[in-house]
Structure formats: C-alpha cells, structure tokens
C-alpha cells in the first residue's frame, strides 16, 4: 500500500501537467523514473571523501623531498607510514585562482574557481560527483565543518550549509521521520504543492517575457524545481526502512563533543563518515576540520592557540614546533579514518577503502606568509576505482628551473623552501587536474574540471 502511495507521485495530474511545460531545462526524466528502477545498484558503489586542514602546514617538517616509490616519510606525515601502499602524497600542485588570495583559498579548494571581486565560485568536485550518486542514496552528500563554512559549492557558486555537531550529523542520516511516515508524507506533499504553486506563478511571467534576458528568474526556477525534486525523492525514500545502526555505533557517534576534545571530535566525525558509506546513506562527504580563521586549539596535546595563530609563527621556534605537532596530530586522525575504512565492509561485503577515494589537504602550504602554492595533499584509497598508490607524486621535480628542494648542510629543509610554497615551480600543475582525475574515477563524464589543463596521471 505504501508502495502504491509513493508511486503515485509519478502520475500526479498537476505535477505531470507541469512537467510537460517547456520552460524547464532540468533533467526531469530522472525524477520520473520509479524508485525501484534506479536501484540497479552499480556493481561497485563509488565513494569520495575530502578533508580540509586550514592554514597550511609547517612545510619544513612536512615536505617529502624524494620523489617516486622509495620516498621517505617526513616527520609530520609519519603516522601514515602504515598505509604506505594505499596512499599517494602529492607535492607541487596549486590552484592558480587562489594565489595571493590568502585565506580565501578554502573557498575554491574543491572548485578550482576564481576569487576576484566579481567572480562567482563554481561547482565543487564533491557536488559534481553527487550529481550522479544522489539518485542511489538517501541523502545527496554530507557537508561537515567544525568551524566556519563547508567546502561544498553548487553550480551557481552558492556555498552549501555545513553540519557541525555529531548528534546533528547522525540525525541527518538516521533519524526516524518526525511524527511517523504518514505525517511526514503529508508534510512533504504540502511542501511539493506550495513549491509547485510558486513555479506555476512564475511561469506566467516567464511566458510574457519571451526571449528577454531573465536574470535571476532562471536561477529561481531551477532552484525551486530542484527543491521540489528533492521533496519527491524524500517521499520515495519514506518507504525504504532506515538502515540499521548497531547500538555500539549509535552510542559512539550520536553524541555531542566539546571543541576542547579535538581528537575525539575528529575521530567521531570520521566514524560518522564511515557509517554513512557503510550503510550507503550517501557516497560523497566533505569534512573541514575548521575554517581558516578559527580552527580549534588542541588542549590534549598542549596546544591552546588556534591553528591560525600558530600558522603565523613569525619564526618563533615554539610556535613552529606546536604547528608541527598539530599537523602530525591531524594526520594521525586521518590515518585512523583510513584504518577504519580498511576494516569496515560495505553492503556488498567489500572493504570500504577499495571503493572510497579520500583526499586530505590544505589550500595553503606556508601559513605565515599565506603561501598558496605547493599544496600539501595526500590521496588515499580507491584501488577498486583504479587508483594506484605507493609513490610520492612530485610535480615540482620536473619543473623547468626547479633546482631541487632547499636542503641545508644537515639535510633538513631551509627557509628558502618557503619560496616554493608561495610561487608555483610548475605553473601547469593545477590542483584541478587531480580533482578531474577523482571525478572521472567516480564516473563523472567530463574531460575538464575547474581550471584543469590535463588530467593527472599516476
């Protein structure tokens, strides 16, 4: 019976009539497809996670200086050593659009867009991926940011709102509908009806205007339309029981953690991401450990300063040490995420790590002077999607004029290295090329993303 109800969306008279209207360029067909038909689950679900660490790193203790397969781990990357076979540290990439744009780099980390005063941001790669994965999952994508904004941007350059609290993230995925299915369905239908009326009303104007420049009108139309499609999708999902979450998982993740417990907080968000992938609630997730201005202090390892503050170390040895410890700590938690992905199996019984690409990094490399080149990046997982790992992928090394890393007599990097972090050695090595690679592996049909100029080959 309930199944019948949900199918009734497809033959609803008013909707069908309006769907025939010629004014909408959205892929209407998609929401006209019965739910079961779209359940031809792809053999290997493809997933992606993106993790952002603000303010760059202490590059002198982070940079790996040897390219290729027999690279040695730097001090702050050490916690990833056990994952050597499933990760690729990457050096020398940058976003041309963020050079000299300081802390705004976070806005285009996943978009490869531009930051000029009248530039509008472009779609972020996770949202590009969600366009094709959304039809399979209860929620299209998951956006988490512990402070400030999310990493995700729509095609119109609008930043998606972020979730922060673990209980809130948990609820967004596993909470029973309020007031039961019937009440929820009534609410969704009322909503669809209202949105429908809004659309019909604007269509009258649209007709009158003919081929005139419609400005904001088109954006309004597509947004309302898309919201309506989502409302219907939510309705269809009402009949699919919520995934079962074990009591242990629920206890561990459905709680709120104080900002002063950064480690627990980071790990619990990672747990929630694992849970989301494991139950196939979504296949795309972004996680900002904190914004450029006020990423957490980590009292548990003696860091009482905000990350931004540490990054402007002004050459202070104590600050540089703390910054290194912070980097190492954050990378340790990322390593925990990879471990959890490796030991957890998805609905098909295969380890998540094989079907999940995880990108960890920052839009800055040298925080003290806002260097936005030579970005610290680590790509991991996704072997089932064709990613190969085990090497340090170094785009600096083949750049014309690159003289090798600035090493002192003791073999350690010297401050001359900072120049590399501010001015790209290889101006063709765009980070968008890497994002394009990931998009393609997710099944996005595109040969261009952001300001990509070629796809990264591993």
């Amino acid at each position: 019976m309930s199944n019948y109800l949900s199918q009734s969306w497809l033959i609803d008279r008013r909707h069908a009539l309006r769907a025939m209207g010629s004014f909408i360029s959205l892929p209407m067909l998609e929401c006209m497809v019965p739910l079961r038909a779209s359940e031809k689950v792809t053999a290997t679900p493809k997933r992606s996670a993106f993790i952002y660490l603000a303010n760059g790193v202490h590059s002198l203790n982070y940079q790996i200086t040897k390219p290729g397969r027999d690279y040695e781990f730097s001090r702050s990357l050490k916690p990833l050593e056990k994952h050597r076979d499933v990760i690729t540290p990457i050096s020398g990439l940058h976003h041309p659009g963020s050079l000299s744009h300081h802390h705004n780099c976070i806005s285009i980390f996943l978009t490869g867009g531009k930051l000029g005063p009248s530039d509008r941001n472009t779609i972020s790669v996770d949202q590009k991926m969600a366009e094709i994965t959304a039809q399979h999952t209860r929620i299209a994508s998951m956006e988490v940011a512990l402070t400030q904004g999310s990493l995700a941007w729509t095609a119109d350059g609008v930043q998606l709102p972020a979730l922060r609290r673990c209980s809130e993230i948990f609820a967004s995925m596993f909470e029973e509908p309020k007031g039961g299915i019937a009440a929820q369905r009534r609410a969704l239908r009322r909503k669809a009806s209202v949105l429908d009326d809004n659309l019909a009303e604007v269509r009258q104007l649209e007709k009158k205007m003919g081929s005139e420049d419609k400005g904001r009108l088109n954006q309004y139309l597509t947004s309302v339309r898309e919201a309506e499609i989502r409302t219907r999708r939510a309705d269809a999902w009402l009949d699919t029981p919520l995934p079962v979450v074990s009591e242990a998982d629920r206890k561990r993740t459905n709680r709120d953690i104080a900002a002063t417990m950064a480690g627990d907080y980071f790990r619990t968000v990672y747990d929630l991401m694992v849970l989301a992938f494991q139950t196939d609630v979504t296949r795309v997730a972004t996680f900002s450990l904190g914004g450029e201005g006020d990423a957490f202090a980590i009292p548990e390892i003696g860091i009482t300063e905000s990350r931004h503050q540490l990054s402007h170390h002004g050459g202070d040895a104590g600050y540089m040490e703390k910054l290194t410890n912070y980097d190492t700590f954050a990378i340790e938690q990322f390593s925990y995420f990879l471990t959890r992905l490796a030991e957890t199996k998805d609905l098909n019984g295969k380890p998540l790590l094989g079907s999940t690409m995880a990108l960890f990094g920052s839009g800055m490399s040298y925080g003290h002077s806002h260097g936005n080149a030579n970005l610290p990046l680590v790509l991991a997982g996704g072997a089932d999607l064709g990613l190969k790992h085990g090497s340090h992928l170094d785009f600096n090394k083949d750049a014309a004029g690159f003289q090798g890393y600035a090493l002192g007599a003791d073999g350690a990097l010297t401050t001359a290295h900072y120049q590399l972090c501010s001015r790209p050695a290889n101006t063709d090595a765009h980070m968008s090329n890497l994002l394009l690679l990931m998009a393609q592996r997710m099944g996005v049909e595109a040969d261009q993303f952001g300001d990509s100029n070629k796809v990264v080959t591993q």
Partner: protein
Amino acid sequence: MFSLQHFSRFSRYISLSFGLAGAVHAAETYDTFLETHCIRCHGPDKEKGDLRIDQLSRDFKLGADTHHWAEVIEQVNSGEMPPKKEKRPTQEEIAAFVTSLDARIKEGRAARMAARPAVAHYRLSRKEYQNTVYDLLGVRYDPAKPGELNEDTLWHGFERIGSELSLSPSHVDRYYRAAELVLDRAFPAAASGETRKVRKTAAEIRYGGGKDQQAALDRFGIKRPLRYLLFPGNVQNALSPNWLGKTGPEHSGLYKLRIQASGIRPPGGQPAHLSIGKRTGEETVDGLIEFDLTAPEDKPQVFEFEVFLEMPISLDFCVVATDVVDRRAGAAFRNALGSRGGYIFTHSSETLLLNPNAPQMFDGQGNGIFSTVLLDWIEWEGPLVSEAEKARRNGLVPPDDATPEVVAENLQRFAERAWRRSVKKEEIAEYLQSYGEERAAGEKMVDAYRLAMQGVLTSRHFIYLVEGDAVARERLTDTELASRLSYFLWSSMPDDSLLTAAKGGTLNGDGLKKEVDRMLTDSKASRFIDDFARQWLQLHRVGMFPPDKKLYPAYDAWLEESMRSEPVEFFREMFSKNLPIDSFIHSDWTVANARLCDFYGLVEPKSGGFQRVSLKPEDRRGGLLTMGAVLGLTSDGTRQRPVHRGVWLSEAILGKTPPPPPANVPAIEPNPPQNPKATLRDKIEAHRNDANCASCHAKLDPLGLAWDNYDAIGQWRTHEKVAAGLGADPMVNPAGEMPDGRPFKDANEFKQRLLEDRDQVARAFIDHLCTYALRRVLAFDDQDDLKAIQAEAKKNEYRIKDIIRAVALSDLISKR
C-alpha cells in the same frame, strides 16, 4: 584639492578624470603601451603563445575577453612580460598601463553587475527577512540561528547586492522551513503559553534555599542578606526551563529579564562585565545579553532587558574579563569558590570571617582581586506579546464557514501586504486552488488556508524585491519606490502609510519629502544605522582572526563586542545630531562604554552602556580611523597589516578599490634570529624595490603605514614588537606621502590631509549609500546623478542626515 588623477588607478568605476565625454577613450594609455611593448610579438606579425593582443575585444562592457586582459595585467605586473631580453618599461609606464587597463576592466565589470534585466530580482538579506516577517506578522524569527537561512554573500561588506545574492535549492528549502516556522508562531496550533513570571533570589539559586547559610549568618550576627558571587572563569545557571513550570516551544517569545546586581572591580583591572547566553564551553557563553556593572557593592542596580527566547532553553551567566580564575591557575581554587555549601558571600568585608579557609577574592583593603559580579536576584517574565504585534495578524485567517469569495479576499489582502503592492486575483489563483484541494481532501480551514499563506511567503514576490515588468522601463513605479525607500531606511517592508501614499500617487514632490522625513525620524531608522554602518565599514571582519592571547592579553570577547559597536554608535550620534562628515575623519569625542574607555585609557563613564565621551589630543583617538574595530579588522590577529589597512581606507573612505596584486608575490620570511630586528615596514619596503610591485604599492602602502602606531588590536605604541632578532624593538615610522605627494608625519597629519579632501570623502560616502540603497554596483551611467546628490549635500557642510535625505530624494533612487 585632492588629485583625482592620482587616484583614478584605484577607481571602482571610471572616475571623472577621464572626462565627461565618457565612453569614448581616444588613444588609451594602455593601447600606447601595448603598441610599444606587446603587439610586435602578439600581433599580426608573430602570434606568440597563440595570443593576438591586437584582436582582443576592446568592448569591456561586453566582457568577452576579460580573462585575457586580466592575464595581460598579471603578466606585466609580475614582470613576466615583456620578456627579459626586450626593452624594459619604466615603473611609471607600468603604473600608467596597469591603471588604465584595470580601470577599463572594472568599468566593464561594474556595468555588467549593474545591468538590469526587464524584471530585476533583488533577494532580501537575512536581516531584512527577519524585519519583514516581524513587521508583517509581529513574529520574531532569527534567521541567523544555525540551521536557519543561509548566510548572505558579501560584496565589499555589503549584504544586499542583487547580483551576489543567489539562490540554491538549499535556500528554497530553508525559505520554506522559515515560512512554516513563522506561520507556526503567528498561528500556534495549541493556545500559546500564558505569560509567566519567576523571581529567584541569590539564596535560592546559589544556596539551594540558603537555610544553613542563613543560620551561619545568624550565628555571626550578620544582617546583610546572602548574595551570589559570580567570578570569571566559570559559567553559572541563569535560567532553567523548569523555573517557569512546564515549558515547550509554545512558550517561545519575548521575555523580560530584570536583575539586581553590583560589580567589583579590582584596582587597575576591568569593570565587571556580565554576559548571559547559551553555554558554549567551560568558561564561555554566546552573549545574548551583555552589560557592564559599575554599580558599587553597597548600591546595587536593577537592570532590565528584553530578549527573544526559543523555549525550552537553558541560559548561563558568564563574567567576562581577561584575568580569570581558570583551571590553569588551579582547579582547587575554583572548586572551593564554586562549592555550594562551603562558600558564603554577603559583603566583601565579611568574606574572611565567613570563609576563613577559602581562597580570598579580596585583599586586606577590601579591594577585589578579580572582576566579579554580586547578584541579588533575577526575574524572568514572558512570553510577552504586545497588542501591536497581535493586531498584525488579527483577521488574517478567514472564519471556518467563510465562502470561497471571502477566502479569496482574505488571501488577496494578505498577499498585498506581503508582496508590498497591489495584487490581482489571478496572481493568487494557484494558491487558492491548492487551498481548495486541501479542503476537498478534508483538511480544516486553518490548515488548508495556511498552505496558501505559506505559498505567499515562499513566492518570489516575498523573498525578492521585484522591480520592472515584462516590457522594460526606466523608472520605478510608486509602489516599487516605496519598497526601495523602506528597505533603504528601515531594512524592511513599507508601512501602511507609505504604501497608501504610493498607491494614491502622492509619493513625489512634497509628498515624497514628507514621507522621507517621517521615515528618518521613525524608530525603525535605527535599523538603517546598524545595517549600513556594519556593511559600509566591513565590520563583519572584526575578530575574524582572533588575536593571539599571548601577544594581546588585553583582548577578550567583551572588548571585541564593544569595539564592533563603537563605529555603529558613533554613526548613530552623527545621524541623530546631523553632524558634518568631517567627524568621520576626526572628532574630539567618541561614543564608548566602560570597557572601551578602559582600553583607550579614557575617563570611564559613571553609568553603563555606550555614551558620548570627550577626547583630548593626548588620547590619540577621534574619528573612525583610530577606532579599535577599524585597526583590528585590518590586522590578522598577530600583527597589523599595513597593506590591508591601505586597501580598507581606500575602499571605505576614498571609494576606490586598488587593482589586485599579482599572483606571484614572494613570501615574507620571519625575521631570522641572528639579524637585527626590523619593522614590518622595513620588510614591505624591501618588497617595493621591485619596479612591478612599486608601481602600485608606492601609492597604496602609505595609506596603511600611517597607522603603524597602532598595533593589531589598536593599542597605541611607539615601538614595534618583533618576536626574534638582535637588538631593541625598532621605532615605528608612520610618516609618508599622500598619492599626490602631500607629506604627513603621522596619523594626525594624515587625518588633516584627508580633511583637505573632504569632497572626495563625501563623494565616497554618497557612493556607498547609493550602492546600499540601489542594491547594485554603481556604473559610469550613474555619474551625473551622483554629482547632483553631492551638489545638494554640499550645500550644508555635508551633514550626515542631510546626505542621506538627499540620496532618498534623488532622481537616481527612483530610477530602475
């Protein structure tokens, strides 16, 4: 006269120096440069890099080749082009080239951003949405709460530029939810909570009734009543949901808080500051209510506030001070003070007697050691709904037995107010149809009708200001003008009288003057003061990079909040007294509270809150530019940033946006420990040895370096603190030259130079006001109208209220 030529390089749109002939730019400076240095390799003869500069589109308004032009600037600016082996252009040539090409690009961009389609949609900002639902339905709704409406995209601080405020599906979802919530509050399903009142004494909240403690007092023969000592470094319960009895969402609304308390201020320390809000950590709350307590121990004061609360809610007290009784100083100390039975407080003179073994909060002379608050009682009353608020929603929902005609009329009336114009029957046909379907499906009148109202509130006519018709026209209709004026001066919808004037055709000539004067004196004009000052001065940047606690121990949350308010309160004073614009640049007064006076080293006001205080030359303050907020927002939490200060000043005060820096700027390295200490200025100047950098920075940097005597949180200093390096901290050197060469030796002289440029400062202020009022970027086509406003405003010494009035009455404001 300030030379516009020198500043045209920073022009946001083409400035007047290019001549009023306007669009025709014969023999452009940039073309001469291209001819000399570029075309030979990027032209008909050779096509290096597949680039033919001679063929790039010169129609900047169309903007077809903008990215190529930006790249050209980038290449020249960064010194990549012309190539090393070619003849080098001079610094002056580069500057002139970049200036003229950048001005052309910006002019084109502004024209594109200012372009209006036949029907233009300007989305309401969050604040405007909030005000509008209040004025429409008397409902309080906070769109800035997490999970509510998305943040507005800023354009140079402005929250309401139409071309920036876009819409995504997530916005649509949130508008839908917001409308649902607003209607829930306007028409609650269950009868909304009755107004209730509760008073808690110190004995009740601190001592669980205080029986034992009272017995102790009696033993000592102490007559004074029990008090609650609140100290910094801990949060304490200020409201529990059960205090008022059973409390649910239906009890949300406006609450009145009354509190009797006094403050202890340690010698040389800060006045006691109390913050009440939701707990955000062990020693912090989000400040819903903030106030200083200057009333002495023996003369407590009753404070009264009104605040909107979403029930059920728990609130906490938090004493904010830089010197706190924190964990690091010893948890035992704090625990002893917090212990319920153990620590008893009545009066500073009796603490040693009552608590011989507890940590002492007062010295032998009875002076406080920490800033503390002594609470006598607290009282909450609510939810309060005024008759005026109720009146706004009376008669909106038709009676249960209403005929379809009556329902249609009701909805039409509602839509006319919500959409701020006349509404035809057919425009609401869809909503009525949905209502009918709901009724047919057996829904109750109120539920079915709410669906229709919801549709009206999620319609584009509500969430956007819609201007224009299918057939393009140049001027606003009277009702469109009414909305533009009310969103300009009230940040909200027109009231009945304004709308009636518009519909009656009297919104012109004297009728318009009458309405504008009425609007300027209405209390809703304070929304304009808050919103415009915040956006114009980019106050959202205050505290964006929290200052380093180690470097700036004097900084705390309350200081930051006070700093953010100072320019707004200053603006309010200028507005209400209609003062000339000069005071923005320099004044012998400011508007400050006790915390700011303490920070600036001024004589502190006797009572709490913001008030006008006078300044002497040795205070080294006055005007906007030496305020903590301005000096702090242009810093990064660890050090001042002269270039940012220069850019801010150029944008906010002079109305010019400098060209963007090239991408390849080399890193500034920290001062090496083995080198002598150097100021930031020395390092920036080393940067400027590069001809390409110098071409812009030579003019820009002095505007920021002039304020080097003020550190990253705005404290006065004579020497710059340098973390590492040899020798003493170096002296600050704030001297420099204006872009046209007039010298100044410090910030004071700089202000004098700016006052000589009064006309330009006023013009920039007018431009900002118009950008705000028109919700768009200004373009070349607006120049004549802007000049007319300036001429009008100049008649009376550029007095602030007169300027705003001139804008509201201008021809420009009634144009699309």
